[in-house]
């Protein structure tokens, strides 16, 4: 597999160009769709699944937005390559077949063009998704929506006048829309306000998850906030509501950072410089430690306590220090015991390459 086929490796969102990108890493939109008259993925026979893939392939080829999409056929790919795509947030763990040792079934595929992708034969036949830098629900939704409108003219989607778009799991029915932001909240964690904020989320119909969505753990103070319900509200209402709450959470985070700077300036400065020092000089780093140190450095950069590195570099480190990326870079297996050493060397290299940024 050649990930070089994807401009920006399929991760333009890493470039930290979006609004509020020191706090909000990325915004993601996904729409769940199914082809009318074909059993949902779990019950589908292999021939149903390949029929779905064929339909999507043909529709993509004659569509406006996916005509030059790169296609990845996951059932023909080795596990480390599938893991790479998962680490880039381009496919779910389920579609990548990483959950148990069950390789992907026939027809499991990903189409990517620019910042929009379509997972085929995931839990639903089609999962359209787009990821944008920073806090940018509007642009992400507009892009995914136009791919949806395009494909919907070429493939008959399952739609019910009362229940809306029909999905394999009723939790996604209606709009099939999941909007989420990946947000970095070290201030709220350090001031111990985070639980209050997270509890508040469920009261306003939102939910939070870890870095990789459903079932993933919170690491490095990154939280994924998203809408819980998908039916009974319009797409715009769901997105506006999430946007409003995220703006509030960003405000709380900024206030928490102010409190930290006022009440414990030396401790915060020390914490962030220590994190930077460890990343710059450590000889072995686990992924979890790296994530936590990166969180400290990102906080320091956001508070202008550290002159660098840039947020783009920090974002790249989040992705490229993961197992499959390191292994691929260094020609090793993902089970290699030397990966912590490879990781530390890679982090040192990226931080050394980084030109010193003057304090703002």
């Amino acid at each position, binding site marked *: 597999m050649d990930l070089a086929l994807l401009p920006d490796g399929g991760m333009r969102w890493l470039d930290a160009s979006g609004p509020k990108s020191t706090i909000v890493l990325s915004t993601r939109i996904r729409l769940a769709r199914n082809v009318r*008259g074909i059993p949902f993925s779990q019950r589908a026979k292999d021939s149903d699944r390949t*029929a779905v893939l064929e339909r999507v392939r043909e529709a993509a080829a004659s569509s406006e937005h996916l005509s030059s999409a790169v296609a990845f056929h996951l059932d023909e790919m080795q596990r480390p390559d599938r893991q790479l795509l998962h680490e880039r947030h381009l496919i779910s763990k389920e579609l990548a077949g990483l959950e148990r040792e069950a390789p992907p079934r026939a027809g499991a595929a990903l189409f990517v063009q620019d910042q929009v992708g379509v997972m085929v034969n995931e839990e639903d036949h089609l999962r359209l998704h787009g990821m944008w830098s920073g806090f940018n629900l509007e642009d992400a939704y507009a892009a995914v929506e136009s791919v949806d409108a395009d494909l919907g003219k070429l493939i*008959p989607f399952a739609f019910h006048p009362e229940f809306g778009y029909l999905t394999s799991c009723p939790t996604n029915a209606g*709009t099939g829309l999941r909007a989420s932001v990946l947000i970095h909240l070290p201030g709220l964690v350090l001031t111990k306000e985070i639980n209050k904020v997270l509890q508040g989320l469920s009261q306003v119909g939102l939910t939070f998850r870890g870095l990789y969505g459903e079932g993933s753990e919170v690491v490095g103070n990154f939280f994924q906030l998203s809408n819980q319900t998908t039916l009974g509200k319009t797409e715009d209402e769901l997105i506006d509501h999430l946007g409003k709450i995220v703006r509030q959470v960003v405000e709380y985070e900024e206030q928490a950072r102010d409190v930290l700077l006022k009440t414990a300036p030396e401790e915060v400065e020390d914490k962030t410089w220590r994190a930077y020092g460890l990343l710059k000089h450590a000889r072995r780093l686990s992924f979890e430690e790296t994530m936590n140190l990166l969180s400290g450095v990102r906080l320091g950069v956001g508070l202008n306590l550290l002159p660098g590195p840039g947020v783009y570099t920090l974002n790249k480190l989040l992705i490229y220090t993961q197992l499959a990326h390191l292994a691929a870079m260094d020609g090793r297996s993902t089970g290699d015991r030397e990966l912590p050493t490879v990781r530390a060397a890679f982090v040192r290299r990226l931080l050394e390459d980084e030109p010193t940024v003057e304090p703002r």
Partner: protein
Amino acid sequence: MLCDNCKEREAIINLTQVEHDSKVTLHLCEQCAQLKGVETGGTVLKSPLGNFLGALGKGGGGALVPAAGDGIRCPECGSSLRDFRDAGRLGCDRCYSTFDAHLRDLLRRLHGSSQHVGERYEAPGEAGTKPDPRSRLLELKAQLRRAVEGENFELAAELRDRIRVLE
């Protein structure tokens, strides 16, 4: 890594709990995790609705998803309500009509409403929509594949001719 609890079996689950504002992570084997009331990966991921539906079956909401099913099977995919409860996934789009009374209740509980108010969709070629010539072609190609698979070569030849004209 060995299980923090029994120190015998291999730990496969990281259980992170927040106690007094600090994060405690336990590495547990499947058995010990279950003893601590943690559902292990497979069941949780496979069926996020499993618990919800199970609870409804046991509690007052029994009517929502009948325990043994009331014998109805989806005429399209053959799924029963019991299959749905076990898997947490419906079998096909037709299931929504087959089990509509049950699903309406369930959707109301999940989302607070069962009425979609978002974007209206009309499939290509449906009454009132202007069929997109591209979709007609794709539909014919899908029919052609089915005809070939079913070894219905006469129909396949006819479809191939019609596709050629459109192309």
